[in-house]
């Protein structure tokens, strides 16, 4: 149990308790947006070097969806928040 993630609800937990869903994509395009825009949103990922925001599910704990900032270079994680905060930010 090496990597630890600080769940905002449960505290420090091993990575094994989480399921990773992937990058937090930019806000959803409008329903009527061009097919190419939707294709980009659904399938194309940037795979950035450095800070990246990802959805993590605390499946072995509180079962909440979280948004976690992870550095893809160092694997350091910072700033873990409940995914509902994205809604408050108007980004969901």
């Amino acid at each position, binding site marked *: 149990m090496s990597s630890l993630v600080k769940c905002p609800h449960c505290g420090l937990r091993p990575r094994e*308790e989480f399921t990773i869903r992937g990058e937090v994509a930019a806000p959803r395009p409008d329903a009527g947006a061009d097919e190419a825009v939707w294709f980009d949103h659904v399938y194309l990922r940037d795979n950035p070097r450095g800070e990246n925001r990802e959805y993590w599910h605390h499946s072995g704990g*509180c079962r909440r969806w979280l948004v976690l900032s992870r550095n893809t270079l160092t694997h350091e994680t910072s700033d873990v928040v409940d995914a509902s905060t994205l809604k408050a930010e108007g980004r969901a």
Partner: protein
Amino acid sequence: MRDYLLENRSPFLDVAAADKGASIRLAPVTGGFVFHVLGDAKSDEAALKKALAKIAQELGADVRKSAPNQWFWVGDADVSSDQRAEIQSALSSQFALCDQTHGRVRMVLSGASSRTVLAKGTMVDLSADLFAIGQSAMTQIGHIGAMITRVEDDSFELIVLRSFAGSLWDELQHMATEFNKPASMS
């Protein structure tokens, strides 16, 4: 309300009586109830406990937080589905009760080294000064999801999904073996 009855049977029907002399003891909790309480986004634990104490004081208000706005309400009395329906209708619409008595199994692990045994499976720090009596954590023991609650000084109650109860039981016995050697071996 559901129109059929769920039969609550212990998955540990043929468990041998716990060895009183064993250093680590594992025992099923038979009877009682486990209700999953789902609150809305603004619900809070103090309000829930207050409401439960008012509506069903005889059942106690042992609520264990499993997630934001979610709890397991646990007690040792048997509750009929009629009584559960009465409690639900007396509760504010902020909270919904879901009977999980048939689906979640309780067992108690106790003994001076019970923390050491649990530490083999979970990384939640159960130290006496960090994990107070009455405190709960939803976590995994090995790969099995379980809620750990410290019920006494060296005593922990575990709540696990019924179909995993046998596996967890065997795993805990195995993890406790080093503390429960037969007298001839010590």
